């Protein structure tokens, strides 16, 4: 085989390699930009179905190219390629094109104002998987890791991933009695109509290896729509229902034993990172809280 014969093969190989992008996958993407965050170079986009990646959803995407990001405004309808890597846990937009600018004036501007780091968390009543009422102040003296989900979430890199990560942290901490006693996990559903206490209990048990004693360290809760909105606004979570599913951003909050916001995660994090931060906060906890134990016993 001479060089001329090899050339087409080499060309095909190069095209194939370029398409692979180190195991990443690319999907065509269209949607409307609802919000723009220059600090993180992210666009929150309400998009349609992306077969093979995720159903219609509203979520934040990083745009890697700063020039590409700069041109887009909230309200624009865009087309782009979404690149998904590492099993879909990392994704970003490339080649963003504005296809319609007419929505710029009507688009919602700015992010929901959330609590700053160091602010006291709100003390709203929540109802857990056993139908018992509690509030975040019940956990003073413990470091708390809190997140939001809805049990019907079909996107594996969203709610199932969050719950899977919390399950790993729960499992790890159960082997460290001191940290276990000074920490608590809370998963809050923003779909209270569907996620009643029995539904949350069933969902929680799936992530607790069917062991209900795990609920003493991990609550699955919700509340009425009004308080839920207040809580979501306080922690910067955005969600809305459409087509019988809920579009939402992702939000994990670390709360200190004094009941103050320590840190948020919204787009990039790992389980070890969350666990290390929670354990670090637990070190400043004076002693296991008694109030919580009494509530569970009651």
């Amino acid at each position, binding site marked *: 085989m001479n060089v001329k014969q090899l050339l087409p093969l080499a060309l095909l190989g190069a095209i194939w390699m370029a398409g692979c992008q180190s195991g990443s996958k690319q999907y065509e993407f269209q949607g409307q930009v609802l919000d723009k965050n220059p600090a993180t170079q992210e666009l929150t986009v309400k998009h349609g179905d992306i077969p093979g990646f995720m159903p219609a959803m509203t979520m934040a995407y990083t745009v890697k190219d700063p020039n590409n990001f700069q041109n887009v405004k909230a309200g624009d309808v865009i087309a782009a390629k979404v690149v998904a890597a590492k099993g879909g846990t990392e994704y970003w937009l490339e080649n963003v094109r504005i296809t319609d600018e007419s929505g710029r004036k009507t688009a919602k501007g700015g992010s929901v104002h959330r609590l700053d780091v160091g602010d006291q968390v709100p003390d709203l009543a929540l109802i857990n998987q056993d139908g018992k009422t509690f509030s975040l102040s019940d956990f003073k003296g413990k470091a708390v890791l809190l997140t939001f989900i809805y049990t019907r*979430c079909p996107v594996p890199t969203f709610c199932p*991933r969050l719950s899977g990560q919390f399950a790993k942290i729960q499992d790890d901490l159960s082997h460290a009695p001191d940290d276990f006693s000074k920490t608590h996990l809370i998963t809050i559903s923003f779909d209270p109509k569907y996620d009643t206490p029995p539904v949350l209990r069933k969902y929680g048990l799936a992530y607790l290896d069917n062991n209900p004693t795990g609920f003493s360290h991990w609550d699955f809760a919700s509340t009425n729509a009004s308080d839920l909105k207040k809580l979501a606004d306080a922690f910067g979570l955005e969600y809305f229902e459409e087509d019988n599913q809920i579009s939402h951003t992702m939000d994990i909050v670390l709360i200190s034993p004094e009941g103050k916001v320590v840190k948020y995660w919204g787009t990039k994090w790992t389980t070890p990172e969350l666990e290390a931060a929670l354990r670090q906060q637990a070190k400043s906890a004076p002693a296991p809280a008694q109030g919580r134990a009494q509530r569970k016993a009651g």
Partner: protein
Amino acid sequence: MKRTVPVCFVLAVFILMLMLCGCSRRASEQRGEELFDLHCALCHENPVPDLKKQPPRLEKLFESPQLPSGEPATDQQVRKTVLEGLRTMPAFDKRLSDRDLDDLVAYLHTLK
């Protein structure tokens, strides 16, 4: 005068009906495949990050007497699982119509 319908005409209608049934079935499976790609493949054909127990693959789902859950491998049980969810699988209640479920189950039957 007694009128008779030619045999070839009856045969042609019969073949046409068979073809239409065939097309209809294929259309259902095709639509089921699209629904599968959109809703099911995300978890059942790719590793789900951070999940302790991975969702099972669904090839030959109906070739075994039992589903991976241990329940009988029937259309009714599969529909129930999809609607209500199972363990870490979310419920697709209110998201898939009866026709969606028909098409999805039709496609699942073709997975070999």
